[in-house]
């Protein structure tokens, strides 16, 4: 056969043969039974062939590119560990941001991995199946590279040592946990709007920017490297998120209101989750990249709006919550740090008060709010510290039934009034941090009554150490809860000032910089 006589295939044609042409209409089993999750959310897809592949990557190319990236990444991780790169960070306080990262993020990536595996199986078209499968395997990469990069920190610093156990139990970690488990328990179309669109596309820059740039600014080559390495996968994930939403909107006009509701819900869920990132940027990076407020303005108010404008032709509107978020951007990082500082006894990381310089930076970045509402609080706490009366909150906070964040946010128009909503459902009272969380609950109460709220569980006695007897004389409930969390009192928690981390870092750095 003359090779040259063969019809030359275009890239698109060839990729179609490598993917969608592999599928067929089943007849021994009905297609609806092979893909049983396609209908129940009410999304209508008429023609899966209209799917445009957001990227064309065959497995051989995938293996090749990804292996290259892995080789480079692990070479850097190894060198970083070998050279005690951790002693290069600006200030040991920075390491506390990594403790939050490890306790929260690999589990999110892992949930994304399993969620995209489900979609990789359940989507009815081969094109989206393959794209979701690739994201599924990428996401386990992210979980593992994070664990492996931070493994070295665990060897030298406290708070990292039982991240997975803590992720399933510790109070504040139920915020990210419930976010992703919420998405994973959704139908396939909502999942992909939640994670593929709202999270990856609209909000991902707000997560990456502080971590990667923050790591770079603060001398953490290790974390910076896995961040950059993951971002090249992220580019693929973002195009998938966008393609999915366009595909769904183009398939049937009846999909629009369903999708709009999901966008509203998941933008709000995502923004609530980012509160901790806001705090990290403004309070935990010794060397600041930019303020949370600035990041929000660039990445959401400018870039995010451009995206929504692009989707306007389908009838998609900017989520209602954007108005409230605009008002909250002056406040949430301060409110969150205030909450964690006062909860410093029950955290797996250290807390501290911002220095005078840092407070001045905050004043300059938040001229309308910091000096008026937050500086006085921190000065008051400082005064108490000086008097030897460091303030710790000894009770458990009331949590929002949906986002699971303590009631720490204030009304959009009154930063002195806690925002608090309450409704009754089947004879029980439920509390919310906002109208938006309340609306999410009202739409699916049967789902959100299932929430595992740490504060409630503790008060119900479900979070004591194994074998503990709460009726025994001298039973110390707080200590027992910390034991249940595997939190090492005095080493993982309390102030940075005077901590083992602080002392070790200073001693090791001195050892490494003097002769």
């Amino acid at each position: 056969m003359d090779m040259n006589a063969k019809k030359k295939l275009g890239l698109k044609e060839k990729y179609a043969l490598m993917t969608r042409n592999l599928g067929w209409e089943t007849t021994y089993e009905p297609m609806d039974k092979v893909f049983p999750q396609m209908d129940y959310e009410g999304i209508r897809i008429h023609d899966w062939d209209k799917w445009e592949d957001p990227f064309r990557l065959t497995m051989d190319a995938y293996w090749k590119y990804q292996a290259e990236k892995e080789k480079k990444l692990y070479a850097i991780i190894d060198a970083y560990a070998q050279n005690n790169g951790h002693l290069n960070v600006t200030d040991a306080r920075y390491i506390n941001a990594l403790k939050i990262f490890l306790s929260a993020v690999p589990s999110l990536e892992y949930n994304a991995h399993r969620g995209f595996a489900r979609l990789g199986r359940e989507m009815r078209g081969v094109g989206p199946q393959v794209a979701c499968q690739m994201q599924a395997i990428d996401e386990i990469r992210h979980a593992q590279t994070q664990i492996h990069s931070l493994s070295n920190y665990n060897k030298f610093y406290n708070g990292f040592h039982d991240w997975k156990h803590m992720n399933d139990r510790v109070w504040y970690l139920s915020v990210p946990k419930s976010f992703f488990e919420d998405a994973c328990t959704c139908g396939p179309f909502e999942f992909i709007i939640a994670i593929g669109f709202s999270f990856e596309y609209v909000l991902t820059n707000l997560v990456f920017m502080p971590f990667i740039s923050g790591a770079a600014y603060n001398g953490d080559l290790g974390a910076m490297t896995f961040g950059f390495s993951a971002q090249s996968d992220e580019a693929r994930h973002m195009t998938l998120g966008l393609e999915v939403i366009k595909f769904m909107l183009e398939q049937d006009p009846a999909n629009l209101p369903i999708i709009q509701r999901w966008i509203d819900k998941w933008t709000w869920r995502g923004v609530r989750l980012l509160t901790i990132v806001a705090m990290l940027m403004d309070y935990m990076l010794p060397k600041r990249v930019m303020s949370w407020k600035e990041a929000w303005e660039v990445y959401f108010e400018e870039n995010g709006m451009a995206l929504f404008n692009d989707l306007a032709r389908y009838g998609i509107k900017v989520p209602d919550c954007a108005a409230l978020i605009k008002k909250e951007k002056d406040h949430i990082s301060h409110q969150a740090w205030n909450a964690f500082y006062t909860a410093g006894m029950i955290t797996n990381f250290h807390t501290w008060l911002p220095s005078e310089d840092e407070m001045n930076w905050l004043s300059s970045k938040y001229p309308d709010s910091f000096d008026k509402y937050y500086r006085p609080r921190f000065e008051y706490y400082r005064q108490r510290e000086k008097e030897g009366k460091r303030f710790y909150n000894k009770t458990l906070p009331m949590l929002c039934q949906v986002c699971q964040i303590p009631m720490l946010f204030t009304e959009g128009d009154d930063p002195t009034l806690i925002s608090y909503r309450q409704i009754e459902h089947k004879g029980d009272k439920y509390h919310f941090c906002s109208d938006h969380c309340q609306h999410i609950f009202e739409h699916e109460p049967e789902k959100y009554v299932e929430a595992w709220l740490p504060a409630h569980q503790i008060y119900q006695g479900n979070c004591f150490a194994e074998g503990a007897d709460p009726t025994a004389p001298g039973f110390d409930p707080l200590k027992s809860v910390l034991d249940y969390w595997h939190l090492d009192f005095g080493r993982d928690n309390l102030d940075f000032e005077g901590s083992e981390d602080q002392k070790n870092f200073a001693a090791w750095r001195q050892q490494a910089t003097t002769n």
Partner: protein
Amino acid sequence: MQIDLRTVSIKPLRHTFDHVARRLGADKPASRYQEGTFDVQPSDNLQYRPTWDPEHELYDPARTQVVMKDWYAFKDPRQYYYGTYTMARARQQEAAEASFDFVETRGLAATLPPDLSRRALDVLVPLRHVAYGANLNNTAMCAYGYGTAITQPCMYQAMDQLGIAQYLTRIGLLLADASELEAGKSRWVGDGRWQGLRRYVENTLVLKDWFELFVAQNLVLDGLLFPLVYDQFIDKRVANEGGAPVSMVCAFMPDWFAETSRWVDASIKTAAAESPQNAQLLADWTSAWLLRATDALEPVATLALGEDAGPVFETVVDAFKARAGKLGLPL
């Protein structure tokens, strides 16, 4: 600010994470496979019921009848985490690429005896769809299985099967052209000789018990199909009849089968050794699917091997039964 650090040796406070240390029995250095695998799946205080399966929790060991005291008893003998997995496959794809290149640049496809080329296409091209079914099935095992120790390699297996479907596609394009892929698909959908196998694949696509799916797909179907097609047909028959180039471009598949069988075997062995109930269950599944797989593959064996099909296929089935016996399955 980059400060100059002298290389000093500082004593670590601990060697690994506590959950890993608990599994190792002590705080000692752990491998990347262990740290990237042990307990990584959320397991406690799960929030909300899945809307797609309200009978179960999000991660629920009860999605299979196999019962394990500890789902992290499964070990991948290859110790694959994402990094080692992709690096291993990158090396293999490089070798495969070299083979395709070798055959293509020398125009070796054109030197094949036409009837041999025809027979190779008849057998290999419809197998694209079998590999795609295996891709979906392993993706399902990852999605619905329990514990990273076993779900993680299922995801790798899924992507491998997609890779195999794509290599088979390239072989079709190399030996013929795109119309051959369409013709192969028509045979897959309509030709009587493929219907048994298609029925088998479609039946597995609706299996609800993910461990039974593991048995039906990774142990039984692949356990017969790969030795039959790649060892007996391609590497022995086709290669001997002047089809060495075909055997070259197929090399990924038998190598892959030999490697992944180590993992499949280890997983079955672990589950069977856990309890006599598990062993019985796995044996029952294996027997039932073996019967169906033999029926389904017989016409494919005939298509490939003509009148020798009977005895050759019998050796394949016997070898499979011996393998199952070694894994602790009383068939």
